[in-house]
C-alpha cells in the first residue's frame, strides 16, 4: 500500500483514540467523584444528607441542607435579576436596534464573559456589598453586613449576562421573518408581534438559555464565596448570609484530610454539582441543537 495512505490511516486512528479519551473525561469525572464520595454514601442515608441541617464534620454530621439552600437562594436571585434585563436587551438588539449599536454592544457583553471570577468578587466587595449594606438593607431590615445572598445574586446576575444575551439574541434571530410579517400585516404593532409571535416561537430557545445560565450560576465558586458571607445556616431572607455548595468545597479543601469522611463529603458536594450541571447542560444543549438544525 502507498505510504501516504498508511500515514493517513495511522493519523486517523490516533485522532480517534485521542477523541475517545478526551470525551471519556465526562465519564471519568462522574465515576472518579463517585468513588471518592462512596465512603460517605456507605455510612450515611442519602435522604438525611439532603435534609439534615447539622454540619459538624468532626462529629461525623454532614447535613447539606444549608448549602443546598444557599446555592438555590443565590441562583434564584441571580436569574430573576438577570432574565428580565437580558430578555429586554436581547429583544431590543434583535428587533429594534440599529446594526451599529448591535455591533457595539454584543462585543461589550462578550468581554464581560472573559472577566475572571476573582475580579467579579473584588467588584462585589467594593461596589455591591456597600450598596446593599448602606442603601438597600436599612430600608427593609434592621442591619446587615452587606455580605448576603442578595449580594452574591447580584454579582452572579452580571456574570450570567453574557450567556443569556448572546444565546437569546441568537435564538431571536432564527425566528422566520415571514411569521413576523404576517402578524404585522394583520395590524399588530411591533411590540404585539414580539410579545405574541416572536417570544412564543422563541420560547424553547429562551428556556434552554435560562437552564444554561442556571447551571453556570450553580457552579460559580470564587466570586460568590467572596461576597455572600459563608454562614452555614439556610438563609431566611435575601439579607441573610448564605453558604453555597461550591464555596463549601473551596473553603474546606485544606483541612479535609485530617477529619475522617470529610474529603468524601466534599467530593459528594462536587458530585452533586457535577450531576445537576451535567443534566441541565445536556437538556439545554439538546434543545439548542434542535433549534439550530431546524433553521440551518
Amino acid at each position, binding site marked *: 500500500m502507498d505510504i501516504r495512505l498508511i500515514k493517513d490511516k495511522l493519523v486517523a486512528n490516533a485522532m480517534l483514540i485521542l*477523541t475517545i479519551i478526551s470525551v471519556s473525561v465526562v465519564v471519568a469525572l462522574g465515576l472518579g467523584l463517585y468513588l471518592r464520595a462512596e465512603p460517605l454514601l456507605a455510612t450515611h442515608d442519602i435522604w438525611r444528607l439532603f435534609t439534615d441541617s447539622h454540619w459538624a464534620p468532626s462529629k461525623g454530621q454532614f447535613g447539606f441542607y444549608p448549602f443546598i439552600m444557599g446555592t438555590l437562594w443565590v441562583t434564584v436571585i441571580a436569574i430573576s435579576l438577570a432574565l428580565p434585563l437580558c430578555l*429586554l436587551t436581547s429583544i431590543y438588539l434583535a428587533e429594534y436596534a440599529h446594526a451599529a449599536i448591535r455591533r457595539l454592544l454584543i462585543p461589550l457583553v462578550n468581554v464581560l464573559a*472573559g472577566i475572571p*471570577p*476573582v475580579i467579579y468578587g473584588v467588584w462585589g466587595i467594593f461596589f455591591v456589598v456597600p450598596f446593599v449594606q448602606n442603601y438597600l438593607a436599612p430600608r427593609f431590615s434592621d442591619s446587615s453586613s452587606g455580605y448576603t445572598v442578595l449580594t452574591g445574586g447580584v454579582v452572579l446576575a452580571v456574570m450570567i449576562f453574557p450567556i443569556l444575551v448572546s444565546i437569546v439574541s441568537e435564538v431571536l434571530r432564527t425566528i422566520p421573518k415571514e411569521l413576523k410579517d404576517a402578524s404585522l400585516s394583520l395590524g399588530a404593532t411591533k*411590540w404585539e408581534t414580539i410579545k405574541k409571535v416572536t417570544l412564543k416561537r422563541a420560547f424553547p430557545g429562551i428556556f434552554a438559555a435560562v437552564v444554561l445560565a442556571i447551571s453556570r450560576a*450553580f457552579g460559580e465558586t470564587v466570586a460568590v464565596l467572596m461576597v455572600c458571607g459563608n454562614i452555614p445556616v439556610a438563609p431566611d431572607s435575601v439579607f441573610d448570609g448564605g453558604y453555597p455548595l461550591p464555596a463549601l468545597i473551596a473553603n474546606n479543601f485544606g483541612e479535609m484530610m485530617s477529619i475522617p469522611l470529610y474529603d468524601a463529603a466534599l467530593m459528594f458536594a462536587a458530585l452533586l454539582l*457535577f450531576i445537576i450541571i451535567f443534566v441541565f447542560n445536556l437538556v439545554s444543549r439538546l434543545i439548542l441543537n434542535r433549534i439550530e438544525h431546524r433553521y440551518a
Partner: protein
Amino acid sequence: MRRRKAEERFFKVLMVLACIIVSSSLFLIVGTIVVKGLPYLTWDMVSKVPQGGFYIGKEGGVLNAIIGSLYLAGGATILSLLVSIPISIYLNLYLKRGSVVSKTAKLAYDVLFGIPSIVYGAFAFSIMIWLGVRASLLGGITAVTLLIIPIMVRTLDEVIAAVPKELKHAALSLGATRWEAAKVILRQIRPGIYTAVLLAFGRGIGDVASVLFTAGFSDNIPLYIDEPAATLPLAIFFQLSSPIPEVQGRAYASALILTAIILVVVIVSHIVAARQSKNNV
C-alpha cells in the same frame, strides 16, 4: 390604538434602560478595579517577588504570581492546543457531517464546557492524590488543561466549519489523502487558531477554583514543573483576606494587573478576529 402604542413606548423605554444597565456593567467593574487599584500600583509590584515580611505589609511585589500564572496558562494552552487541533480536525474532516460519533463528541464537549472549574479542580486533585503528585505547576496545568480543552475544541470546531467545503473537495479530488487535505485546511484557519488560543489563555489565566488545590502557592518563581507555583487570581484572593491595609491595597493592584492582562488578551483576539473576517471574503 393609543393604549397599544403607549404599551409599546413603555416597553421600548424599558428595553433601552436594560441595554444601558447590561452594557454599563462592564465599565462599572473595570472602573471600580482601576479606581481602587491604581493608587497602589507601583513598579515594585510587577518587578519584585515577595520579600521578607511581604504579608505584613513590607517590601516586594507579585512577580512570582504573574510569572506563575503565565507559565500555568501558557503550559495549559499549549497542551490543550496539541489535543484540540487533532480532535476538531477528526470531527470535522474525517467524520461525515452528522455521524453519531461526531454528534456525541460535540455534545460531550458542550457539556464539559459547562462543568464548573471547582469540579475540575476537585477531580484533578483526586488524581494527584492517587498518583502521589503534590500541589505543583504540573498539577495546576493538568486541571487548567482539562478546563480549557472544551473551549478550544468548540472554538476550532466553529472555525473549521466556516472554511468553504470546496477547499477540502478540491484537495481530495487532486489525489490528496484526508490528512494532506487537513494540512491545507489548517493553513487556512491559522487566524482562527490564534483566536482559540487567546480565548483559552484568557480563561486559564483568570481561573481560581481549578488551581486552588492543584497548583499550591509559593513566593518564588517556579523553576521546575514539580514545584508549587503562585497564581495571580489566588494572590488576589489571599491578599484580600488579610487585615493589613497595605496588603489589601496590593490585592487591588494585583486585581488591576490581572484585569489589564485580560483586556489586552481580549483586544488582541478581537483584532485577530477582525482581520480573519477580512481575509475570508
